[in-house]
C-alpha cells in the first residue's frame, strides 16, 4: 500500500565546521502536495534539500520515504527512491539533444548502435504528456531557459519521480513562462507527485503551494497551510520584521533635473523614450521581460549605441560611444547579473573598488598603492562591507556584500547617477533591506537612482515615480501612488482604462 507521506524528515541536524547549518528540522511532504520551503539565505533550505538528494549526509535525524526509513548515502540512492530536483542552473548536458538528455547514461541500443527512434519517440511522448511542444532532436542549448527547465521536469516524469524539488525555478523565467511552469506543477500534483517548492518570491508560494514550511537560521519555525497565512505573517516568521519596515526609506527627491532623455531610439529594442531624472530621486523602471528596460539604460550608460535621441546630463549633451563616456559623465551602472557583468569575482575587494579609478590614481600607468588602499578602506568603512580584509576575493563574500562592493566601485568613481538593474534578484529579505539602505544613503548624498525591478511591490515601495515600458515603447510614467493593477495594465500594453492601445 502506498503511504500518504511521500517524504518525512524528522529531527534533521547538520553541522559544518564552525556552523550549525540545521538543528532538528522537520519536513513532511504528502502525496499530491505542493510544499513551499521559505527562509532567508543561510536559513538552511538548500542544506536540507541537499541532504534529501544525497549530496550531504545528515548528522542526526531520520528520513522516511513511503513510510520506510532510508539512508540516502548518495545522489544515486535518491534517484532510485524516486526523488528528483530541478535546480536554478539546469544540470543537463547543453550540447546534447533533448532526447539524449532524457536517456543520459542509459541510451537504448539496437544491434550495438544507439536506437534513436526509441529515444526520440519516448522523449516526445513524455513531453506531450506535459503538453510541451518541443522537438526532442533539438540541442538543449538551442532552447530557451524555460524550455530547458521543462525538459528537466519531463525527464523526471519519465523517470517516474515521486517527489520533485524546485529550487528557485522562476528566477530566469518570464511571466508567461512562469504560468506555464505552474500549470505543469499542477499537473504533477494531479498525478500524485509530491513537490517541494523553494522561492524567494513569496507571491509564488501563495499561488502554487498548499503548505509552507519556514526555516530561520537552521531552525524549523513552523509548517502551516498556505490558506492560514498572509505575506506579512510569512515574512515576520522569516525575519522577525513586518512588511512596512522593509520599504520604509527616507525620500530625498529634489527639483533639479540631472538627466534628461529625449526620443532615445534603438531599433528594434526600443523607440522614442523620453523622461527626466531629478536629483535625489529614485525612478523606478518597470516592464515585462523583453520590454527593453535594460536596453534603454545600457544605451544611456554607453554599453550600446542608440540610433537616435538626445541625452543631457546636468545640462551637458552626452553622446556615449563606450562605457568610459558614461563613467566620465558620472553614471554608475550596476548590471542585473552582478557575477557576470558587475564584478571581477576572482579579484580582491580592493581591486574591484578601484577598478574604474585606476587610471585616475596612477601616474604614468603606475598605481599609487597608498591611495588604492585608502580608497578601499574608506568604502569598506562607509558602506560597512563585511569582509575579513580588503584583499579578500569578492567571490567569498555574501550577495549583499558583493552588491556593496559594486556600489563602492561607482561611489569611488564619483558617480552621481546610479543605474541598478534588478539589484535584489536572488538575495534574501535581510540583504534586500541592506540594499534599500544603500539607496537611502545614496539619495541622501544627492545621487539619483534608476531602479529596474520586476518585483512590483519593490518598485512601488521605493520609487518616487515609475516609468513603465511595453515592447520597447514608453507606456507611461506614474507616481508611487499608482496601484499594481494600473502598472500591470501599462506594462501589458493596455491603457489605464483597460482597452488595448491601437498601434499603427
Amino acid at each position, binding site marked *: 500500500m502506498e503511504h500518504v507521506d511521500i517524504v518525512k524528515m524528522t529531527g534533521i541536524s547538520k553541522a559544518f565546521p564552525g556552523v550549525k547549518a540545521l538543528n532538528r528540522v522537520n519536513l513532511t511532504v504528502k502525496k499530491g502536495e505542493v510544499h513551499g520551503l521559505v527562509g532567508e539565505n543561510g536559513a538552511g533550505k538548500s542544506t536540507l534539500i541537499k541532504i534529501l538528494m544525497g549530496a550531504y549526509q545528515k548528522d542526526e535525524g531520520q528520513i522516511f520515504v513511503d513510510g520506510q526509513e532510508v539512508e540516502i548515502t548518495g545522489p544515486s540512492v535518491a534517484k532510485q527512491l524516486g526523488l528528483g530536483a530541478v535546480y536554478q542552473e539546469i544540470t543537463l548536458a547543453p550540447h546534447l539533444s533533448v532526447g539524449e538528455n532524457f536517456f543520459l547514461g542509459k541510451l537504448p541500443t539496437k544491434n550495438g548502435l544507439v536506437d534513436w527512434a526509441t529515444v526520440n519517440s519516448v522523449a516526445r511522448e513524455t513531453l506531450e504528456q506535459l503538453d510541451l511542444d518541443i522537438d526532442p532532436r533539438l540541442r538543449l542549448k538551442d532552447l530557451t531557459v524555460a524550455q530547458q527547465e521543462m525538459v528537466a521536469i519531463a525527464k523526471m516524469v519519465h523517470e517516474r519521480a515521486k517527489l520533485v524539488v524546485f529550487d528557485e525555478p522562476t528566477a530566469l523565467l518570464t511571466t508567461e513562462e512562469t504560468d506555464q511552469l505552474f500549470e505543469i506543477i499542477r499537473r504533477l500534483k494531479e498525478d500524485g507527485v509530491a513537490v517541494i517548492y523553494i522561492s524567494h518570491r513569496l507571491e509564488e508560494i501563495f499561488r502554487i503551494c498548499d503548505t509552507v514550511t519556514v526555516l530561520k537560521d537552521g531552525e524549523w519555525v513552523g509548517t502551516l497551510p498556505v490558506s492560514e497565512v498572509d505575506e506579512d505573517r510569512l515574512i515576520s516568521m522569516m525575519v522577525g520584521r513586518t512588511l512596512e519596515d522593509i520599504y520604509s526609506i527616507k525620500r530625498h527627491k529634489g527639483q533639479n533635473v540631472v538627466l534628461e532623455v529625449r526620443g532615445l531610439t534603438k531599433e528594434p529594442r526600443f523607440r522614442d523614450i523620453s523622461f527626466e531624472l531629478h536629483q535625489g530621486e529614485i525612478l523606478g523602471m518597470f516592464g515585462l521581460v523583453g520590454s527593453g528596460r535594460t536596453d534603454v539604460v545600457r544605451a544611456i550608460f554607453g554599453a550600446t549605441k542608440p540610433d537616435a535621441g538626445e541625452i543631457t546630463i546636468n545640462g551637458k549633451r552626452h553622446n556615449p560611444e563606450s562605457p568610459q563616456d558614461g563613467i566620465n559623465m558620472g553614471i554608475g551602472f550596476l548590471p542585473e547579473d552582478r557575477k557576470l557583468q558587475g564584478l571581477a569575482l576572482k579579484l580582491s575587494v580592493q581591486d574591484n573598488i578601484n577598478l574604474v579609478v585606476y587610471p585616475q590614481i596612477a601616474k604614468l600607468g603606475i598605481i599609487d598603492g597608498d591611495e588604492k*588602499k585608502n580608497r578601499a578602506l574608506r568604502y569598506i568603512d562607509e558602506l560597512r562591507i563585511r569582509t575579513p*580584509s580588503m584583499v*579578500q576575493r569578492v567571490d567569498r563574500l555574501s550577495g549583499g556584500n558583493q552588491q556593496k562592493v559594486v556600489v563602492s566601485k561607482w561611489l569611488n568613481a564619483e558617480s552621481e547617477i546610479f543605474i541598478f538593474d534588478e539589484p535584489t534578484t536572488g538575495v534574501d529579505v535581510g540583504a534586500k533591506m541592506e540594499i534599500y539602505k544603500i539607496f537611502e544613503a545614496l539619495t541622501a548624498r544627492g545621487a539619483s537612482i534608476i531602479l529596474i525591478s520586476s518585483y512590483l511591490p519593490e518598485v512601488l515601495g521605493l520609487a518616487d515615480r515609475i516609468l513603465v515600458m511595453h515592447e520597447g515603447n514608453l507606456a507611461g510614467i506614474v507616481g508611487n501612488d499608482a496601484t499594481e493593477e494600473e502598472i500591470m495594465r501599462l506594462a501589458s500594453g493596455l491603457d489605464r482604462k483597460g482597452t488595448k492601445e491601437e498601434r499603427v
Partner: protein
Amino acid sequence: MNGNPKNATAQAARTRFKGSFIAEGTILVVFLVLFVASAIFVRGFFTPHNLSNLVRQASINGVIALGMTFVIVSAGIDLSVGSSVGFAGMLAALMMTRFGMGIFPAVLIGLIGGTLVGLVNGIVVFDGKVPPFIATLGSMTVVRGVIMLISGARMVSGLPRSFTNFAQLTVLGVPSLVLVWFSAAIVAGFIMRKTVFGRNIYAMGSNPEAARLSGINLRLNYYGIYAFSALMSSIAGIMLTMRLANALPTAGNGYELDAIAACVIGGASLNGAEGTIVGTVIGAMLMATLRNSGTLLGIDPFVLQILIGALIVVAVLIDQVQKHKQ
C-alpha cells in the same frame, strides 16, 4: 573611523602575505626541497659552473614564460611563442648576414617583427573573436612557414662575434642571459602588480564583461597582452640565436609547451585571473633544476620527460586540492 582603518590595514597586509604565500609557497617549497636534495645527493650539481649553466638553460624558457603569464592571467593562451622565438632570431640574423646591418638595428628589427606576430594575435582574438587557442595555433603555423620561406629552410650562420659573445658574458659571475631574464621578470612583475595595465589583465581574466562595463578599453589591453607575450618571446629568440651562434629555422619549436608548463607549475590558472610572475619564475627554475640534476644523475632523458610531465599534473592537482580545502 577611530583607528579602525589602521587595524584593517595591518590585517590586510597580513592577509596579503598569507595569500601570496599560499599561491606561491607550495611550489617554492617543492623547488627548495629539490634544490637542496640535488645539492646534497647529486655530484657536480652544486658547483658554480653547473649552477650558472642551470640558470642559463632556464633563462630562455623563463623569458618566454613571463609573457605567457600575461596571456594566461587574461584567460587566454599563446601557442605562437615558439614561432616568435624563431622569427625574431631569424629576422635579426638575416639582417646582419644578408643585409650587413649593425647589431643594434638588426636586433631591433627582429624584436619588432616578432612583436608584430603578437599584435596580429591580439587583433584576431579581440576583433575577430577567434578563441586564443585557435588564433595562436594559426599564427604559430603561419609564422613557422614564413621562417622557412625567408631562410630557405637553412640555418643562418656567420653571425658577428660581438653578437654571439654576448651570451658568454658574465657580470659579477652572473651570465648575461640570466641578467636579461631577471631584469625582464622584475619589469613584468612590476607591470602586473603596480600598473593599471597589469590590474586590467587580472580584471579581464576574471570577467571581461565586468571589465568593459568598468570602462576598461578591452581592445587596447588585449593588443597589449599579446604584443607583450610576443615581445618576450622575441627577446628569447635573440638570446637563443646568440647562444647557438646560429639562427635555426626550427628554433623555438615546441617552446610554447615549456612556457605554459612553467606558468602552470607556478600557480597560474588557465581559467584566468590567477598567476604571478614570481610563481612563473620559480616554475621555470623548478623545471630546469629537474632536468639538470636528472641529466647529472644519468637518468634516461625519456624518463626525465615522464617526470616533468607528471610534475605539471601534480602541480595543478595540489592547487586544486588546496582550493577545495578552502
